């Protein structure tokens, strides 16, 4: 018997199905419910194919071949039907694919997983998971704006899990080890990359590129690498040994540092391009955007001040100091001034709560004694005869006069546009213009990332963009197509009532506080104010994590296919099942709202000779998989639980996390 599939003619046995023959020919037809060696379940509808002469689409898993049959497995009509099937399944598929925290994390650290490892005492594993995407967990664990904690589900019960401090913990723990954790490297690719800028962006990109086997040279105008991590952030927040240790890892991976090299003066872009396969501009945003109000010249630039302090200088400060500005540098200036002996430090912020640094530094700054006023607009400043500065600000429609010995202005930072233009690069109003997906600039072979692209981006976003840029550069160096990286993954998330269901019965457990110096002690010197978690604390805090992420997030068939077919998970709104979770079984969890009713588990349970097993209850849209007579799951699946969980194409049935 002859059949043709996608133009390939072959001999086939009449007992064979279209799917069998296609697989033999190496033609991939996606399936979800199909179980090798079992009667086809014909439920998911994802294996539909077109057969010439038949007006309907046929299920490849159940359709026997016939002589002269001409099958097409990948026509637009077939793809459209498969996409629709996936969209329909997704429209009634509830639960979290990823935990809210990892979604909110710009770097996409696998937060639930590393927290799980910490809880299990496997700190090196935890570090390895974090260092998959982030090169500076010790740094970020201290200075990150913690979007993850804003999203944390636990926050709706009591308080968010201290994700950030937990991220820092394995990095700090690693410092005490004899041999630090060093990620594995790919064999050398023979390609060279020049990275301009040794800040978090440049170093992170180098970290990833080196792991990929590329040779990296990092150029920076400063004497030592670290960028803003060294220049702006005070030692009391980020002790230098923690920073050096993580930079050391980059060096150990093979990075070459060329310090005191300034782009445009000592270095020319076309020279770099000639000698390297690609150039990454991680030049950051280093220029202060001057504010314009009369008397602004009396204010001292905060950046110069911070840089001097970081170089070990301890400049004399006034008694009564005002800091203007709302960015990262403003808080650091204020807190550094306290440590240098200022009696009163007032921070006048021009904007309010929208600043990302506001979240993380506000409490510390206030506890140390910084007075914060928001929504202040400076009008003018003048110097009195005794040198006292009088700053007139407008706050809430009223004009207020502040007197101070010294005023620091922490202006907004922006990239060096003159340099960008002189290099012949296109720019946006926030930095170098790049293709947002590939990080390519307007000059071929030149990439850019971090705050050079988007001034004011928090460190974690710089880190995230650096790792994405590194991936793009790596593809570019290998000659692969870089225009389109992976399509966005299709996900569903719990909302509203589902979250309530998820959180029902969660016992309240207060968030553990890290070991902090008393504010008075803290402001007395440059010792680190927050010493993070002890191991015991870290493990206890890690066990507060609710593990919201789907247990199948790495091997969900539905998600993989939905991503492949670019199904729109939000296409259909309407009636859907509420989220439920049954974790009464010792080995597996059951989340019925994720079930696609494929029937695999029913067959497996029956094959395994389960006395009760599983059955469909009801029919139509309401049909669900359950144990007969409302018995608990542990009764229904006594033998086949793990087998069922592994066979489930979604996270409806999944193995419990070991703990």
């Amino acid at each position, binding site marked *: 018997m002859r059949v043709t599939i996608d133009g390939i003619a072959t001999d086939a046995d009449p007992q064979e199905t279209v799917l069998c023959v296609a697989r033999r020919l190496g033609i991939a037809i996606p399936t979800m419910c199909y179980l090798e060696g079992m009667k086809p379940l014909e439920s998911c509808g994802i294996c539909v194919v077109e057969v010439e002469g038949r007006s309907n689409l046929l299920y490849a898993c159940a359709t026997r071949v016939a002589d002269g049959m001409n099958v097409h497995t990948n026509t637009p009509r077939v793809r459209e039907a498969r996409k629709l*099937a996936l969209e329909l399944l997704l429209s009634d598929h509830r639960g979290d694919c990823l935990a809210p925290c990892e979604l*909110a994390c710009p770097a996409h650290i696998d937060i639930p997983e590393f927290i799980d490892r910490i809880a299990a005492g496997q700190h090196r594993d935890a570090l390895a998971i974090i260092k998959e995407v982030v090169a500076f967990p010790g740094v970020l664990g201290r200075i990150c704006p913690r979007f993850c904690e804003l999203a944390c589900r636990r926050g709706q019960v009591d308080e968010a899990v201290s994700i950030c401090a937990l991220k820092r913990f394995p990095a700090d723990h690693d410092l005490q080890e004899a041999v630090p954790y060093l990620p594995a490297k790919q064999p050398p690719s023979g390609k060279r990359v020049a990275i301009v800028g040794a800040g978090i962006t440049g170093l992170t990109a180098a970290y990833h590129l080196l792991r990929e086997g590329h040779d990296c040279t990092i150029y920076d105008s400063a004497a030592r690498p670290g960028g803003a991590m060294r220049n702006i952030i005070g030692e009391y927040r980020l002790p230098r040994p923690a920073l050096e240790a993580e930079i050391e890892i980059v060096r150990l991976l093979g990075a070459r540092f060329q310090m005191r090299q300034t782009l445009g003066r000592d270095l020319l872009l076309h020279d770099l391009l000639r000698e390297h396969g690609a150039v990454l501009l991680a030049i950051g945003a280093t220029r202060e955007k001057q504010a314009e109000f009369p008397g602004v010249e009396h204010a001292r630039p905060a950046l110069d001040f911070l840089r001097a302090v970081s170089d070990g200088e301890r400049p004399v400060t006034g008694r009564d100091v005002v800091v203007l500005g709302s960015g990262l540098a403003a808080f650091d200036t204020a807190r550094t001034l306290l440590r240098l002996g200022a009696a009163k430090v007032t921070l006048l912020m021009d904007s309010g709560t929208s600043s990302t640094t506001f979240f993380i530094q506000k409490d510390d700054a206030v506890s140390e004694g910084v007075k914060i006023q928001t929504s202040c607009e400076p009008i003018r400043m003048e110097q009195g005869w005794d040198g006292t500065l009088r700053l007139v600000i407008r706050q809430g429609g009223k004009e207020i006069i502040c007197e101070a010995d010294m005023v620091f202005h922490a202006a907004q930072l922006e990239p060096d546009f003159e340099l960008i233009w002189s290099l012949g690069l296109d720019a946006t109003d926030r930095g170098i213009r790049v293709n947002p997906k590939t990080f390519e600039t307007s000059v071929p072979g030149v990439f850019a990332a971090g705050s050079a692209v988007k001034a004011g981006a928090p460190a974690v976003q710089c880190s995230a963009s650096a790792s994405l840029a590194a991936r793009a550069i790596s593809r570019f160096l290998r000659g692969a197509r870089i225009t389109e990286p992976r399509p966005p993954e299709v996900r569903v998330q719990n*909302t509203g009532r589902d979250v309530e269901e998820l959180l029902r019965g969660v016992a309240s457990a207060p968030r553990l506080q890290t070991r902090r110096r008393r504010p008075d002690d803290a402001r007395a010197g440059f010792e680190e104010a927050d010493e993070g978690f002890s191991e015991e604390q870290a493990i206890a805090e890690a066990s507060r994590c609710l593990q919201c992420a789907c247990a199948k997030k790495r091997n969900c068939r539905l998600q993989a296919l939905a991503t492949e077919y670019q199904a729109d998970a939000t296409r259909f709104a309407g009636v859907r099942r509420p989220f439920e979770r049954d974790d009464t079984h010792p080995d597996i969890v059951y989340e019925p709202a994720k079930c696609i009713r494929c029937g695999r588990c029913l067959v497996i349970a029956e094959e395994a000779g389960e006395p009760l097993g599983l059955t469909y209850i009801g029919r139509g849209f309401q049909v669900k998989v359950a144990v007969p007579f409302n018995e608990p799951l542990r009764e229904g699946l006594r033998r086949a639980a793990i087998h069922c969980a592994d066979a489930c194409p979604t996270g409806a049935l999944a193995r419990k996390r070991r703990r």
Partner: protein
Amino acid sequence: MSREQTNTDPRICLAEAEEIVRVAGSSRDRVIRILQLIQQRYRYLPEPVLRRVCELSEATPAQITGVASFYSQFRHRPVGKHIIRVCHGTACHVKGSVLIHDALYRCLAIPEGNDTDPEGLFTVEKVACLGCCTLAPVMQIGDIVYGHLTPDRVPHVLRDFLEQDKQRPTARRRRPVLERRDGVAEIRIGLGSCCVSKGSALVKEALEDAITRSGAQAVVKRVGCVGMCHQTPLVEVVIPGERPILYARVQPRDAKAIVARHFPAAGVIRKLDRAVSNLLDRLVTDEAWKPVTRYSIDFRDAPVASFLGGQVRLATEHCGYLDPEDLDEYIRHDGFKALSLCLDRLTPEAVIEQVRQSGLRGRGGAGFPTGAKWATVLSASSDVKYVICNGDEGDPGAFMDRMILESFPYRVIEGMAIAAFAVGAEEGILYIRAEYPLAVQRVQEALEHCEERGFLGENVLGKGRRLRFRIFEGAGAFVCGEETAMLASIEGKRGMPRSRPPFPAENGLRGKPTLINNVETYALVPWIIRNGAAAFASQGTERSKGTKVFALAGKVARGGLVEVPMGITLRQIVEGVGGGIAGAGKFKAVLVGGPSGGCVPAELGETPVDYEALTSVGAMMGSGGLVVLDDSDCAVDIARYFLQFTQSESCGKCTFCRIGTRRMLDILDALCEGKAGEDALEELQNLARTVKEASLCGLGKTAPNPVLTTLRYFRAEYEAHLQGRCPAGRCKALIAYEVTDDCIGCTLCAQNCPSGAVQAKPYEKHLIDVEKCVRCGMCRITCPEKAIRIGNAPLKDARTGPKRKPATIYRISDDCIGCTLCAQKCPARAIKPRPCEKHEIDQERCIRCGLCKKICPHGAVEAK
């Protein structure tokens, strides 16, 4: 079902489970029968009994639980003392059954999500069709059918029922009935389900009573369905040598008068009776709650002649005078002649050739050539083959199969026997819905009679052939009309279909070749064999031969069961046979083929009844429901109604049907509530097309038909719904009742309004509070001046949903870092979470709650 509840049920005795399993058999394929018997005993399925059955039989807990929850016949909770069945058939739907249902819930104070009133007196059930389409809207309490209901009558009906129930005699007297003889006058009474449900059994009793008392020389004779369901109960008086007289809509109290008129008694009472009988000649309006008119009708009357004149009776031959249970009478009317002809003179091949030449095609809907199917089964090599009669008719508004089974059980059996002979099968199964108890009973009795007389059994007609037929009672699942689902059901499983091929003709029941034909198809076979293929093929069109039985209902003047020749146009059926639209409405469309069929607009009324012609206009022959719509019916509402049906009947196996029909229904719901988005129609069309192409079985493949045809022919109406208007004034959320200047200030509407929405001052024009109004239509019904008009609902915010709320528009600026916090919190799911990329707000979905703006840590949401 909570276990405590069932364990404390004092009636439960586990020993009965043993008895039930012994009676029904203990193999896996007996599960449905076992469950039916348990339910017969307890009126629901108590869990302890089910568990005991698992121990006693081969059935597994998984199978029992799966099957018990699949079929809608089975109940899992104890029921109220009386069951109210509210018909939701098509005819009842277009006449407002939803309002009746709502009124019942209001009246009985049944909490939402429940079906039984707090006192446990009444349980309200929705049924697909009671088969009384011409009395629509109807409900049945116990065995009493109440028709022509309006919401305001519901409390009276309940009171009436409780009174009747109190007075009900515990046992009825048996009366001696005259032996039937030739030459004796006959009073024929229709005893099809629709007649019975309208009280013909009581009429029969009353007639017998009247005959006994008056001593009249007459017998009362049951006949099958006459088809004139719009006139039931029908009584025909046939006196030899006289012109037969037909009485319509007879009530038990008329019996005496009818008997007295035709069989005058001697004595004092004679005069009195005379006076009474005169009443029969006039139109009598009943003052009681049932506004039923009774009058005698004549075959020569124009309406009756046109109703019957357009019809050709083959499957329903001898309709109206054949006693359904009388085998001798059937034999006198050429019964079993065809079977003996086959056995005596024809080879199986010759029989099949006859069927092939006749051009007979399957009457179940798809129209597969019957001869070809038979030939496939014949040629399949197997020691065992089966024939199955598909009587699982479940379309709302269709009751052809039921009527044929009830009225002509022998004919169906004969057809099946011929088929069994032709394909070489010895075993046959009649799959009949359990909702058709009368059909089950009649066929059961007929099978017994046939066995006794040798038409079935070990040695059929002495020719040495073996034929065993049995009945399989379905348990309430429309999808079991699909042949592979039916096979699963017969094998004791959930009625889930599988893909074909292999077709049942090659691989059917228990893996053996199985012939499955519809009731009507089998009923036509004896006629074809007796009269020859050519006679049959002379009726009809090029590719569709013979006749088709339809259940005609809806807004038509004369509904009922009709058998018409193929090729007759839809307009001829509606206007000729059906007598046009009842009342003042205008003929708008015909729904052909029920939930699998389509909506054919009046402009295409010339479409002939022909498989291909109907398919070409987007409809299909279906099993034979014909529901006529007038201009007060809303096309969107009709599409939604049918989809509700198919959606609730979907077995849930394949994705496309299970979720696809649900999503289509979601869109239609949104349309009917004025909440649909701009791209709703396009989305609906795309969805419908793919569901049709990719669903596993016939149910899913045809479910989109009503949607696709209404979209095709009544697109303007859909577009009006997009703008929040319902031109037919049907969709509750889009209409508002208004009091016109005709109001005389009588306050009747206010007195009847269930929600207190009418502000009425006597002698002043009343006002209706749109917010309070529940759109039950009570005011319109009660208003003596017809001063309530249906208008468009005012554009509101809270009711018609978020769509119209004029407010700020939220946008995401370039400050977005892609942290997805806003998307995670958005209650309307209007923000697509694309991590690390700038998010976007879907303005269609956005409900302007502003949460995203509040939540964004980067101030990246701007409000305008």
